[in-house]
């Protein structure tokens, strides 16, 4: 499994656009690419950062609301989660990967980059844990393929040697699903929480919004 990664010092400050600008081999008109590496070979590398997209399953009632309810599920290790991580691949969709694209952004001098998350494909072995996706997400050859088509605006946090961005996938819900969704606060009170879901919730501003 090949994943996108960058040298850690290329991703900080203003060096990322210039890092890309120096690599003519990674630029094709208005599209940028990153070097891809075998995941197992770089998982514990201290010199490379892998890009990770954390996709949450947002319960959407069709009303304008600031509530942040999300579908809750358990992972194979028994821990509660509100989303799944996907490594970024800029070349082709693949199970367990987020197929993204880096595009030239604003038409100003310099390199402004927009990052689009186009599609994620959920590994088959997780299907039994995500029964709320049944009839709500397209399945292709036994894989849930979620069309995201959203911009990732910034990196939310660091996790080991990963830079994690967040994006939500909306799932319509009805009141009959209420026992399967949880607010950020309800999630934080659960005993066994998945580490990435926990970080995702904690990095959000919901406590500030809860005072409004």
């Amino acid at each position, binding site marked *: 499994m090949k994943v996108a990664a960058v040298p850690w010092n290329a991703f900080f400050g203003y060096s*990322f656009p210039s890092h890309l600008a120096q690599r003519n081999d990674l630029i094709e008109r208005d599209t940028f690419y990153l070097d891809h590496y075998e995941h197992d070979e770089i998982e514990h590398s201290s010199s490379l950062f892998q890009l990770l997209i954390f996709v949450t399953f947002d319960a959407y009632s069709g009303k304008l609301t600031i509530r942040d309810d999300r579908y809750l599920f358990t992972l194979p290790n028994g821990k509660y989660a509100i989303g799944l991580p996907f490594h970024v691949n800029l070349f082709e969709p693949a199970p367990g990967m987020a197929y993204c694209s880096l595009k030239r952004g604003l038409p100003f001098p310099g390199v402004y980059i927009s990052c689009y998350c186009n599609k994620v494909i959920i590994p088959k072995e997780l299907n039994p844990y995500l029964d709320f996706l049944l009839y709500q997400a397209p399945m292709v050859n036994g894989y849930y393929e979620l069309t995201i088509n959203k911009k990732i605006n910034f990196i939310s946090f660091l996790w080991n040697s990963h830079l994690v961005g967040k994006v939500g996938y909306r799932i319509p819900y009805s009141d009959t699903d209420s026992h399967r969704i949880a607010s950020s606060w309800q999630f934080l009170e659960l005993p066994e929480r998945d580490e990435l879901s926990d970080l995702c919730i904690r990095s959000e501003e919901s406590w500030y919004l809860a005072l409004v």
Partner: protein
Amino acid sequence: MVLSASLVRYRVENARFKVAHFTDSLSNTYSVRVEIFFATQDGLLAFSGSLLGFGTNEWYFKLSHGLSYGDIYILSEIPNPNDIPLMHNGDYPPWDALWSVVSCPLSNEELCNLVSAECSSLARLRIYIHNCFALLLRHLPSRLRSCVDAKYYIQHTVNLHGIMNHIREFFYVDRNNCAVWGFLIPSRLTYEFLPEYLLADGSSYVKPVPLEQLLLFAESDLGLNFCIANKFLPVFF
């Protein structure tokens, strides 16, 4: 029981933050903490434990202060926000007890009512948090000057109206149930508050830490993690 020393706590009710009564159980309540990070060109400033006088660590990457009942009282009482309230003997109050410079005449119930009224809305809490931020910010260079040499003039009056647009604010919930209001001071302003010649003299109290070293601590310190993400990681357009 001295209520002034107790942290203001919130309880979540119907997805809303409500001030918890001081006699309530602490379980599933959240305190509020102000954290201030000082950016340098390629990292953050670290402050020695001996300068800050709290905790057991040798160095700290942030000024951190939990908002207490006493803080709300003193912040509502300070007539001039540019004064640094000192103890009667002229000493600085402990960082975690800035409220101790003024004895609070209110009963516990009155103080609780004051805090409930003042901290229940975002608009009011924001004012208190910003004043607390300003107070901490004024303390720091003044304390550093007292540690190194008094010959330097330190600009410790902070006009927040002029600088708040340049200070990044971020929010998160810590692992020990603290709702954190973080401030990241850009390097240009860092050197305005703490001039480089002062930093050079106070090197045993303050030191710049480059990013590659900060990364080693980002796993254990959520504030540092989110601060690095805010400050150093690229923003897409």
